[in-house]
């Protein structure tokens, strides 16, 4: 029987980690991730996990220790936020290129400056090209579920890539929600034991990890990483199917919300999806044909699913909680636009940057995006492609 608890996102993910019981967790505290590791350290102190908890002196070291442990053959995890993730940067790439199935919750927070500790997606967007799988969470339940699924996805023999699961800083990390926890033994069975094919501690089969890889093979190893990324979707769907049987909660690469007969839709990720669903419901009650596309899996980017979803629409708005300076607009917008060109799907796509540095997004703002789309459909004129929600003009 699942246990229903009131948990913050941090606590929910800490419970997931308790149930996963990784061999090694290396951590350094940073707001708003701190509470996650506090909670996990408490589980550790209470003897509820037999994890080797490594308390490092920086995030660079935390990721390094996690990489070392994973290379040794351990199931290894860490967690971070914002500037901590930035400090891990160098090793984040190494984790992916060494094909180590590390799972890391990232509590999304603005990457300063000016100094800001609140939510936006600029931290994970900064490493969207690092070779990690990235899965975004709408609420605390999904954050918990994603943490469990990520282990199986990362460790799948066809994949062997690290996974970041994200939850919005403070908005989810520090907000209590109703969370259903699976039984400990159910999780234990679901994630299974980790048996790496190669491990430094397997002394009968000595290996070298991280050797020099110059002009002769570096390119080929990058090609392998690209190939692994192309194998991710079926594995995510297979794991989501297994998880649905245990929990009754089914997750896809994207979620289409009231999209079947919709003419206008918005695309977004993270906790704002919940607010946007409310707006869609309100507008549907008023007879408007609107819908929503939630992106769960951001890397690899689900091009086909999004293209198929967009086919039915007359106009769409992409809401980005991060900036990509010097490009068309936000990173999600750029990706969405790239899925369309040359594929026979042609519709007006506009971009809104919102919620930077934890700026509130409310229903009125999201409704205004739908209103703008209505005008675009009516007039046939797109106008400004890059727009802002909640910005003082």
């Amino acid at each position, binding site marked *: 029987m699942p246990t229903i608890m009131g948990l913050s996102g941090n606590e929910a993910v800490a419970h997931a980690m308790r149930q996963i019981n990784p061999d090694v967790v290396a951590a350094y505290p940073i707001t708003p991730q701190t509470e996650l590791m506090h909670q996990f350290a408490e589980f550790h102190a209470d003897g509820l996990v037999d994890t080797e908890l490594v308390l490092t002196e920086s995030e660079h070291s935390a990721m390094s220790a996690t990489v070392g442990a994973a290379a040794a053959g351990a199931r290894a995890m860490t967690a971070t936020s914002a500037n901590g993730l930035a400090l891990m940067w160098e090793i984040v790439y190494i984790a992916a*290129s*060494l094909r180590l199935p590390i799972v890391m919750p990232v509590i999304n927070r603005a990457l300063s400056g000016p100094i800001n500790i609140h939510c936006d997606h600029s931290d994970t967007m900064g490493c969207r090209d690092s070779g990690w799988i990235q899965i975004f969470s709408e609420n605390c339940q999904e954050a918990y579920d994603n943490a469990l699924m990520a282990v199986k996805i990362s460790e799948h023999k066809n994949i062997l890539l690290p996974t970041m699961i994200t939850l919005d800083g403070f908005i989810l990390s520090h907000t209590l929600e109703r969370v259903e926890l699976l039984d400990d033994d159910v999780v234990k069975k679901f994630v299974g034991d980790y048996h790496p094919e190669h491990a430094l501690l397997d002394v009968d089969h000595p290996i070298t990890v991280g050797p020099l890889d110059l002009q002769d093979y570096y*390119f080929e190893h990058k090609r392998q990483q690209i190939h692994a990324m192309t194998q991710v979707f079926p594995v995510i769907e297979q794991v989501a199917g297994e998880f649905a049987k245990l929990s009754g909660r089914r997750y896809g690469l994207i979620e289409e919300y009231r999209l079947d007969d919709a003419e206008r839709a918005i695309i977004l990720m993270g906790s704002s999806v919940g607010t946007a669903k409310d707006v869609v419901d309100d507008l549907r009650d008023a007879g408007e044909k609107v819908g929503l596309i939630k992106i769960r899996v951001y890397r690899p980017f689900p091009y086909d699913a999004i293209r198929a979803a967009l086919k039915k629409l007359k106009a769409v708005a992409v809401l980005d909680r991060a900036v990509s300076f010097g490009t068309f607009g936000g990173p999600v917008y750029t990706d969405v636009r790239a899925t369309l060109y040359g594929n026979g799907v042609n519709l007006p796509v506009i971009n809104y940057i919102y919620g930077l540095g934890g700026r509130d997004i409310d229903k009125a703002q999201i409704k205004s995006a739908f209103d703008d789309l209505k005008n675009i459909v009516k007039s046939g004129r797109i106008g400004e492609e890059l727009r802002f929600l909640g910005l003082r003009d």
Partner: protein
Amino acid sequence: MSEKSWKEIPIGGLILEPGASRRYKTGSWRSFKPIWFEERCIQCLACWNACPEPCIMVMDGKVTGIDYDYCKGCGLCAKVCPEKAHAIEMQAEF
């Protein structure tokens, strides 16, 4: 350059065979090569001690030559060779 494709090599740059670095001949990196003069050598073994690879070939406690397959031309051997003996000289490879 090796000929194997991305489908044929272990993932993540793993090397699955111990001692494989023997096959990685770093001698091609060299732009200066040490020349050893047997008649001037006093067999102090300072070069053998200093060589990071190790490329100073020794038989029965005596230097017998330099293994150019792995010598990167760092010049440490020539540097530590006693000035009076001057048994190792660096020579431009090209």
